[in-house]
């Protein structure tokens, strides 16, 4: 075609391309805007609890109840996760049978990087969580994978979280429609009701934080993963994000998924992203 009519055609094509990129395949009629979501998410909680400082939301039920907060403070003087944390440090620095170690699998030798997890792996096209990365590191070095829910996995993630304590959650969504889709799917999971009790994550953690379900005080969803992994009095032991997701599904009388199933990875991605900026407080203690 001739040059002067190519220009309007090109700019039309460019405009169309820009529009397509700006409105990725989203299930809902409105566009996916994680930045707007995160702002709205934080505003919802700070409006609802004006006396709670933003960074204190990571303390879960303790930010919601004075009596609980005092018990927690007393226990934090010498916390119950102390032994797991120690074990995690020991494990992390011990080489595998092939001579390599976890340090070789992670940026900065695995120190001070927890706040970047989960991340969207563009090669794989999926969300990769810290727990998943740890087991992949093991398998890549000829070691058997650990259970995702407690013990060694909890100890390792406890150590890594500890090296990031105080750093703001920093989850990135790359300019990749698949990443946006994973984020959006995570958000959908979070707000979808399930199980015989017909609860969504939001039913407890957005609608009712600070209130009681039976005898427990509910944590706000904002910053809810920042304290992971946690020592729960209820478990008399440590548990990971995977443990909490699966047990929660059981508790609302739903069928739990397997740890690290896509839905769990996506909801972890969503929840972590909307809590960006809040400090990592893990490992944590909870009722």
């Amino acid at each position, binding site marked *: 075609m001739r040059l002067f009519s190519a220009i309007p055609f090109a700019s039309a094509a460019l405009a169309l391309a820009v529009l397509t990129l700006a409105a990725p395949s989203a299930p809902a009629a409105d566009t996916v805007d994680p930045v707007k979501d995160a702002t709205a998410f934080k505003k919802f909680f700070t409006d609802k609890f004006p006396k709670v400082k933003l960074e204190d939301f990571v303390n879960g039920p303790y930010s919601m109840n004075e009596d609980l907060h005092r018990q927690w403070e007393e226990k934090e003087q*010498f916390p119950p996760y*102390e*032994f797991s944390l120690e074990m995690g440090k020991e494990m992390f620095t011990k080489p595998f049978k092939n001579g390599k170690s976890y340090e070789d699998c992670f940026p900065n030798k695995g120190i001070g990087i927890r706040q970047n997890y989960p991340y969207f792996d563009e090669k794989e096209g999926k969300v990769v969580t810290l727990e998943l990365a740890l087991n992949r590191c093991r398998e890549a070095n000829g070691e058997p994978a650990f259970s995702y829910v407690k013990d060694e996995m909890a100890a390792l993630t406890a150590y890594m979280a500890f090296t990031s304590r105080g750093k703001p959650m920093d989850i990135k969504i790359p300019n990749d429609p698949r990443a946006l889709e994973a984020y959006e799917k995570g958000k959908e999971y979070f707000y979808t009701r399930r199980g015989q009790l017909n609860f969504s994550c939001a039913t407890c953690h957005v609608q009712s934080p600070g209130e009681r379900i039976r005898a427990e005080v509910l944590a706000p969803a904002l910053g809810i993963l920042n304290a992971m992994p946690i020592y729960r009095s209820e478990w*008399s032991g440590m548990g990971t994000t995977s443990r909490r997701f699966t047990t929660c599904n059981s508790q609302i009388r739903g069928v739990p998924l397997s740890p690290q199933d896509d839905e769990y990875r996506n909801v972890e991605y969503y929840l972590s992203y909307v809590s960006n900026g809040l400090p990592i407080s893990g490992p944590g203690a909870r009722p």
Partner: protein
Amino acid sequence: MASTIRVRATSNGDTTEVQALIQHPMDSGFVKDAKGEIIPPHFIQQLTFEYDGRNVFAADWGGGVSKDPYVKFAFKGGKKGDDLKISWIDNKGATDTTTAKIQ
């Protein structure tokens, strides 16, 4: 094997504050396992803190003390660099002891 006893002893010149966290199941003997069988009692019975050749604190514990037991107390004296010796014995006769430096 690493000690089960973790200690934080700090002196402010006048008094020394001691916190100890010990790794121990402290099974009371009243709890059943998943199979419905009683988990036998297994808990620390006596715990002592020794400074300068004498006990500055001693505990007699039963199964009602929480798992991974914790205790905090303070005594007059003690200075940075001094030793504090902690020992325990449980109902099965197992023992552990550690010496920590006052910070």
